[in-house]
């Protein structure tokens, strides 16, 4: 449905050239929900703008629904207005001089050949109904709340029934509670229309909750892509692990590697864990054991195989608490039940779940 190959883009800046895209390749199947996830400046928005035709890459090609819209090597660059897309901006870009109806009707009114006024009206009202804004048709655009503006932006993006929906951080301007609500509405809306979606965000929880496929971007490249559970559970490197949720890193040494299981000595040999290992990690290698705060249990009493730490702080977060621990010079976090009664300076013992740990060769 959407095919992107070898996208490169360099900006000239005051401090020299900045390589925003260093070769981006991905495919989105018909009806798929594909998310580009990364910190600001990683190139995710540039990629989306290239797909939209608002930006021209220096190299590479893009095809939407089988039609090549960009092929730099052959000099093809279809302008944005001829691409079959709907786009929702981070700022929503609702035109302040039009009412809600005018904003949503715009894509139909500029269409050639012209549509009959009756058809336009019917389709605009359909689109407004889809986002639950039909009673606001005659409201001035400037008199809308953030959430309402966003719904209008969605209606405007969908009214042409585009083949591809592009969403550029559409939720990031909303406050936390509304964001969560809109996330579900958005998902519902997209699954109802079945439109193929390319989504750009820096919010990992949005990406994990909504996507079929998440692609983590960093410094102009896609570092890892896959189903949300897979990317979260099997990060390909430290960057991805760190970016997707919080991760603990424990430095250790492989004592023995056998049958895909490595025995790792932690904390200078004070304790050992048995972790599923990748090929190529031989005995003697220095490694990082990576695990998520929710994959470790914390106890105030020693037990067999537990690692002793110093408890530095317990942060109450409502439904759970976060334990901040220290093992030698390494800071660790764990999720505990809020009933855990501990004081800073107490000793604590953590138990890892080996099957949820990942090993990387230390850098």
């Amino acid at each position, binding site marked *: 449905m959407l095919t992107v190959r070898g996208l490169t883009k360099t900006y000239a800046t005051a401090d020299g050239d900045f390589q925003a895209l260093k070769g981006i390749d991905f495919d989105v199947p018909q009806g798929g929900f594909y998310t580009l996830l990364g910190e600001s400046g990683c190139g995710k928005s540039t990629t989306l703008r290239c797909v*939209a*035709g*608002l930006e*021209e890459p*220096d*190299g590479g090609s893009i095809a939407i629904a089988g039609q090549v819209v960009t092929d*730099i*090597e052959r*000099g093809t*660059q*279809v*302008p*944005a*207005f*001829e*691409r079959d*897309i*709907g*786009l929702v*901006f*981070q*700022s929503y*870009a609702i*035109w*302040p*001089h039009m009412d809600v109806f005018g904003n949503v009707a*715009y*894509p139909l*009114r*500029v*269409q050639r050949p012209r549509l009959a006024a009756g058809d336009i009206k019917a389709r605009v009202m359909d689109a407004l109904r889809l986002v639950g804004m039909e009673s606001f048709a005659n409201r001035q655009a400037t008199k809308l709340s953030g959430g309402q503006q966003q719904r209008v932006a969605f209606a*405007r*993006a969908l009214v*042409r029934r585009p083949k591809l929906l*592009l969403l550029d951080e559409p939720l990031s301007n909303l406050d936390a509670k509304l964001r969560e609500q809109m996330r579900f509405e958005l998902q519902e809306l997209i699954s109802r229309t079945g439109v193929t979606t390319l989504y750009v965000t820096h919010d990992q929880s949005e990406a994990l909750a909504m996507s079929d496929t998440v692609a983590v971007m960093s410094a102009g490249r896609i570092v890892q892509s896959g189903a949300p559970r897979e990317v979260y559970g099997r990060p390909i490197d430290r960057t991805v692990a760190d970016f997707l949720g919080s991760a603990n890193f424990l430095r250790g040494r492989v004592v023995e590697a056998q049958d895909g299981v490595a025995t790792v000595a932690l904390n200078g040999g004070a304790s050992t864990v048995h972790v599923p290992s990748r090929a190529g990690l031989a005995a003697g290698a220095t490694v990082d054991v990576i695990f998520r705060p929710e994959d470790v249990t914390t106890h105030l009493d020693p037990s067999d195989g537990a690692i002793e730490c110093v408890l530095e702080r317990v942060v109450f977060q409502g439904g759970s608490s976060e334990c901040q621990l220290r093992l030698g010079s390494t800071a660790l976090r764990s999720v505990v039940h809020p009933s855990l009664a501990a004081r800073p300076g107490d000793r604590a013992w953590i138990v890892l779940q080996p099957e949820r740990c990942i090993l990387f060769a230390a850098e």
Partner: protein
Amino acid sequence: MAVQAEEAAPIVRAARRQRRGQLGLAGILLLAGAAAAALYLVLAPLVALLFTAFRGPSDLLPFEPGAHWTFDNLVEVYVKTPLLSTVLPNTAIFVLGSVAVTFFTAFTLAWLVERTDLPWRTPIFTAVLFPLLVPGIVMAFAWTLLFAPNAGWVNVALRALLGLDTPGPINIFSMPGLILCQGIASVPFVFLLLGAAMRTMNPALEEASSASGARPLTTFLRVTLPVLRPGVLAPLILATLVALEQFEMPLIIGFPARINVFATRLYFDLNPEDELPAYGRVAAAALLFLAAAVILLIDYNHLIRRAERFVTVTGKGYRPTRYALGRWRLPALTFVGLYLAVGAILPSIVLVWTSFSGGSTDSLNLEAYRALFADRRFWPAVGNTFIVAGLSAGLITLIGALLAWQILRLRFPGRRLLDAVSFMSIGIPSVITGFAVMVLHLTLPIGLYGTVWILVLAYSYRLAVSTRLSRASLMQIHSELEEASAASGGRWLDTVRRVVLPLLAPSLLASFLLLFIVGFREFTIPLVLQSQDNWVLSVIMWRLQADRQTAQAAAVGTLILLFVTPVIFVLRRHLLSRQGES
């Protein structure tokens, strides 16, 4: 994959292709047309001027048969004649003096209106604008009626009051008279700029000073003035540029006193009593002043950029606190009253009265108006005034908006040049523009010289007004609003027509109004380019005044006042409503 020949530079080719794709042919033609028009309106006359300075002999046009390359003009102007010893010092004294008067008056007025509890602030604000709209030539004429040493009203009154029987005591035909008149005439626009700077100042800066234990005067000197500095210096430079190009006051008031400044000197060289016009010498002399103006302009550009960074607007709707005038209230009102009397009230009264009395007899009559309306040149001049002001204002607004859009939104070679050209017009003295357009069109065989249309072209060099206003409001329009149109399937023309223009409309209207007023007031350019067929009202008035048809000249002045007065109220409402928004 087969390597094709044109793959050598795929990026450049594609970039060009995309631009054409996004804009469409109509868009490209429109934008390129605007750019070409800007070059033709601003740059071409200056190039013609440059050629003229280096072509001789001086009484020939640069490309007339017999003309050749030479330095004679420069030698003549800068070595042999007393340009440097008389005109230059005169111009310097005139400019510095009048800017000082303007600044002292405008700063005091702006401070009183914006930052104190002065009573009747709104009516005062309105009245201060008066000399902004009334053409300088009308003000100059009215002031000579008031302050001429023998017959001036104020002198007659003072003599009666003091029991004197010599001419005077005030002699407007002197350097101090010239400086005061020009100083007062320039007050309104400096007042507006300073008022805006004072209004947008973050009151928390002053409040923090008070909260730190500083007394009001200390706060004013240590916080307010330094914070306002860029916002104050920029209008100062602008006032200097305006004074440098002033022509009306030096012509009406300076000429009888034998005081020549640069603008009048150029004019008289161009219209000598019994010789041919000395094009080459005029051009050579113009170069010096053009250079001075460009230096000021670069400073100005630098300063407004700093001012934009420096002055912080809170956006919370807080207004700076107003100082209680207390016992200073009466002196303050006296100051305001004195300015308004000299700048608005007395000139209006003297014009109206003179137009009905013929200036000499005490019986009121309509003779002057009858004679004026019967003059076969009068009605065409009325038409010309409105046609030229309206057309040039429309033309500049359109071109300026297109320029601002492409400078801001596109990347193309020559963008900076275009930006500089569009901005440069602030600094070009209008007498130089008039002369440069004259040389250009005497040289180009397109038959515009002597028509109304050459005035439209010459007036239209003031591109900067429109590009600045459009640019400021385009910067407010988030580029995503335009991209949303493209992403919705809108072609460039759709985007411009349905998104950009409606959002830009208020500033386009403001630009049109402002330029219309400027065009309506214009005197220098139509005087330099005058012919039998293209007289405008200001030129008619000057002619009548020079021919000692005082009552008829006053009648023209009165009619201009009649037209301008309602405009002042429109302008005030516009300015005050914008003030309310910000």
